[in-house]
């Protein structure tokens, strides 16, 4: 058993190494997304909120099927937002048709998230860099502490210097730390403008 497991892990690791050495030289980029730091996203976002998903609906607009997800805003980290906002996400189901767009986040009712948002010409919001501007909140039952994980923080990258895999993006970060990073980026931008 141990021999099999060990061999399996070795094969798995070698597969990862080979694939990465072939495919990835340094940092990874999303097929559809430009990699952005929290600071960059904080500057790009007009509004940053902590919110709870309330409802999903779909409909046509501008020749596209959209999923409109409404959120109850729990806290505003940047900009101003009403107590309830609507975020438009590409894709969804309308009548007998389904529009599929890979890489667009979807939300469950009751789920709590931090979202980096831009206003659309329609007056609702879209998410900066889709998955990258989406952070899911997880609460530890025992301690009540909260952490966030970025939707795009899913892929380990191979560091040639250390020859180890390192996860890109933000995973299990205390929510206070993310808030501090956002505040720092916003403050720095304000100082630069002055």
């Amino acid at each position, binding site marked *: 058993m141990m021999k099999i497991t060990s061999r399996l892990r070795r094969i798995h690791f070698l597969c990862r190494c080979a*694939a990465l050495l072939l495919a*990835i030289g340094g940092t990874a980029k999303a097929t559809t997304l430009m990699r952005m730091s929290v600071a960059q996203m904080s500057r790009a976002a007009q509004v940053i909120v902590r919110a709870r998903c309330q409802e999903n609906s779909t409909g046509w607009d501008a020749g596209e099927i959209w999923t409109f997800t409404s959120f109850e805003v729990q806290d505003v980290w940047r900009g101003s937002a009403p107590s309830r906002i609507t975020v438009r996400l590409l894709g969804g189901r309308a009548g007998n*048709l389904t529009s*599929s*767009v*890979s*890489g667009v986040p979807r939300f469950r009712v009751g789920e709590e998230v931090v979202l980096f948002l831009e206003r659309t*010409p329609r007056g609702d919001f879209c998410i*900066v860099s889709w998955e990258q501007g989406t952070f899911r909140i997880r609460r530890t039952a025992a301690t009540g502490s909260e952490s966030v994980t970025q939707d795009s923080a899913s892929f380990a990258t191979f560091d040639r210097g250390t020859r180890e895999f390192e996860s890109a993006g933000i995973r299990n970060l205390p929510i206070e730390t993310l808030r501090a990073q956002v505040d720092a980026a916003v403050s720095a931008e304000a100082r630069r403008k002055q």
Partner: protein
Amino acid sequence: MKPSIAVGMAILLVFVLLGGPSAQAYLLDSTIPQAGGCPAYDRWNLSLASPLNRRWSTSLPEGPPTLVTVAAQGSAAQLAEIEQVITDSFGAWSGVTGTTFNATNYPGLIAPLAQVSAANSCSNDAESNVDGLNTICFNQSSMGFSTGVLAFTRVITANAPGISVGASATAAFAGQILDADSLFRPDGQATFATPAALATSAGAYDLESLLAHEIGHWFGFDHSAVWRALMFPFAPPPGQFLGSRPTAQAPDGPLSDDDRTGIRLLYPDPNDTVNIGAIRGRVLPANPFALAAIPAPSQGASVTGIFGAHVVAVDTDTGSVIAGTLGGWSCDSSSSVLRFDGSFDIERLPVGRNYMIYAEPLVGLATPSDFSGALNDLCASGSAAPCTTPAVDTNFNPRILPAGP
């Protein structure tokens, strides 16, 4: 410390020749038929009389230009250079043997690449505007392009026979793709270089890698969790490309075996005698009571296996990842009952080879949100038998039977 609901896993393996009904999600999009029934893969219904139409808009952004070519901007040679990249990107998929899309064995299933001049050829502001024409656009704005979004592909499918949009064929089955369009960001936030221009275009993304990936979505692919796969959600950074460049001898060079297995599954060549193997089984927790706390997906049903495990087939002789799938459910085609029982099904494997199977939680390599399309479609709103897709189980440690404690 992170609680673990399962300390062991049983993988029941059956290596059989293909023949039984396929009822697994793989990493492909699927549709719940309006009339009820098992999820159906999203795919085209093509024949020589109704080949895959495809066109691209020659309207290119000028201020600033986003497409970098060796040929001069605005010249006919530039259009030819871009068109060659599009052709090669399609060729990567039509170069795979064992599929009905194979250009050598089944010429004519993909129509010649046409040109259109209008910028907004992928859609316009008219409500419900889906033209049934499959188009690549480089100069069309969209509210989908929030900051940081480089390109996206929108695929329209029907959930019942008899549905059509614009110039599309009328759907013959649920899950039939009626329209696919790819939009590249036109506003200058990013630039895309042809292979010939990539080396000298600082900061530009490889157009061929992105196009071949987006065209994979045209064929019905969701993202893959296999590192080397073209359909892996992350592409190389600017200045780099995936796999090898297509050649006359190996037009499918940019693809991985995982991509090849996927397209063989979607569009199998009935005359293929090589890629006809399948490995099926279930991923189960050592302690079945660990599943008791998971909410029932529908009335009277329960979750009886690990849902959302990434199950991978590795060629034991070469170490290559041949295919990966997202396991966790099955569907009885006779009763249309969807069960979240931990089932997985890896099909279209080359026969006569030895495989090792492993399952891993969707953490580290990829997370459930990367595959939300494939997972969410399992329980589609409006289906005849409504259900709620369980949360993906990422909290288990895999072991192989015969296992210890």
